[in-house]
């Protein structure tokens, strides 16, 4: 894609993450390395429990690696960094704030004056198609609308990188599709770097510029696939041969890893 440059935005270097526990320590990630270029849309797929969320938490600075390091624009990530905006599956909206106030939150933290942040928030609320809902509390919105608020909130804060952890998993298939299309539009317009986690291979193919398949726990990179499907990725593309080929390829490698982890679970 034309927005891709050759600058490395995020560099994950030999990261290992161990969770200490009373019984036995859990090694979630083992010596994982991955570079994400500026403007890439990387989708990570992998079996449940393979360490995807853990990896994203490390990038956002919520947690620190047991070994190895993560560089953002060449600087090691130490604490929580607002430069990596996170979008959670459970939306994580502030229930006591209206849509408007939720979207303004990041700007308020930057101590931007009221008038200015109102204006900016309004722009992003409009962008995600929620004009008219500014005064609503999250409680009154449907799942899809909540996730749109959460996207607007993140965008309003203008992060360089957006991290999404199965953002659409809780939505029904149809709402999900609408949001996927909106996300692609935003990505194309704002030239963000995106790391996106999903369980759905279709979703991965629909959105990504590159797909990363992780192994079963402890998570490492199993395979990387550059997604060269043409845009827009409409129904025609989804029924094309290249799509089928890519899907089969990913299917096979994910399948093997899933079997490993399911066997582990049931035995």
């Amino acid at each position: 894609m034309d927005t891709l440059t050759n600058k490395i935005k995020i560099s994950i270097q030999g990261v290992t993450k161990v969770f200490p526990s009373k019984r036995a320590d859990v090694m979630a990630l083992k010596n994982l390395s991955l570079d994400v270029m500026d403007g890439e849309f990387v989708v990570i797929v992998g079996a449940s429990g393979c360490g995807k969320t853990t990896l994203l938490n490390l990038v956002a600075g919520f947690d620190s690696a047991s070994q190895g390091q993560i560089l953002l624009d060449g600087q090691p990530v130490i604490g929580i960094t607002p430069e990596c905006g996170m979008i959670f599956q459970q939306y994580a909206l502030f229930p006591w704030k209206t849509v408007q106030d939720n979207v303004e939150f990041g700007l308020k933290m930057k101590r931007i004056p009221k008038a200015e942040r109102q204006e900016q928030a309004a722009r992003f609320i409009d962008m995600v198609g929620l004009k008219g809902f500014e005064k609503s509390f999250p409680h009154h919105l449907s799942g899809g609308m909540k996730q749109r608020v959460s996207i607007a909130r993140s965008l309003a804060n203008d992060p360089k990188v957006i991290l999404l952890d199965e953002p659409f998993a809780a939505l029904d298939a149809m709402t999900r599709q609408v949001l996927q299309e909106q996300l692609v539009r935003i990505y194309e317009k704002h030239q963000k770097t995106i790391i996106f986690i999903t369980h759905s291979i279709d979703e991965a193919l629909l959105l990504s510029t590159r797909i990363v398949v992780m192994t079963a726990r402890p998570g490492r990179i199993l395979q990387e696939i550059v997604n060269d499907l043409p845009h827009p990725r409409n129904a025609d593309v989804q029924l094309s041969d290249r799509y089928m080929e890519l899907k089969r390829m990913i299917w096979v490698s994910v399948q093997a890893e899933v079997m490993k982890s399911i066997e582990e679970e049931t035995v």
Partner: protein
Amino acid sequence: MNTKNSSNLALISIVSLVFFLAAWEIYCRMGFIEPLFMPAPSKILSRAIKMLNNWSLLGHTLASTRRVMVGFIVSSLVAIPFGIFLGSSRFFMAVFDPFISLLRPLPSMSWIPLSLLWLGITETQKYSIVFMGSFVPSLLYIIEATKNIDPLLIRAARNLGASEVDVMREVILPGALPQIIAGLKVMLGIAWTCVISAELVAAREGLGFMIMNGKEYFQTDTVLLGMVMISVTVMITDLVFRKFEKRLLPWTL
């Protein structure tokens, strides 16, 4: 539940109450029970009218209400900031934990002897009983409320650039508010318990005094009237509190 159904249920409740009162009245009139042990509802009503006329019923009720309110408000004002602080600091929680554990099981009543020694028979002593009785439980509620905040929301706030202090003000306080208020509602009930205790032992007014004094003069109707007044007053405070709660928590509507 639709409207018709719920008004039906209210009707059942009213019929049931009326029926009970009528049965009680008749039972008493038939002389099955000594008025000393259980006076008829009509006796209680006439006592109420008598005490309303000389303003003493209102006086007792207001005295108790004032004590509850002062003790409760002071204890909330201390417990809320302190509870939020303890709930968000594991170190200070550990420091204060042994004292909280020791104070928690102590009924407000058990403070009466000590408070009498320290403060004498003053209004402050009454307030202190309400304070001691409601402070520790309130504190525990508030600590709990603070700890129960979804850590995801804290993460989200930090991720959007909030500092530790911002998180405290913007996330922990409003996030814990519904539970804090629910806790305070319970505490208000406990505060009433405390005040009645305090008044039973050394007081010259208040509903607790009224029922204790009624007992001294074998006026069982006064005792029962006092109890009814406690019920009614608590119910009214509760109602007022609930109105207030809706105001404070618009997002939960």
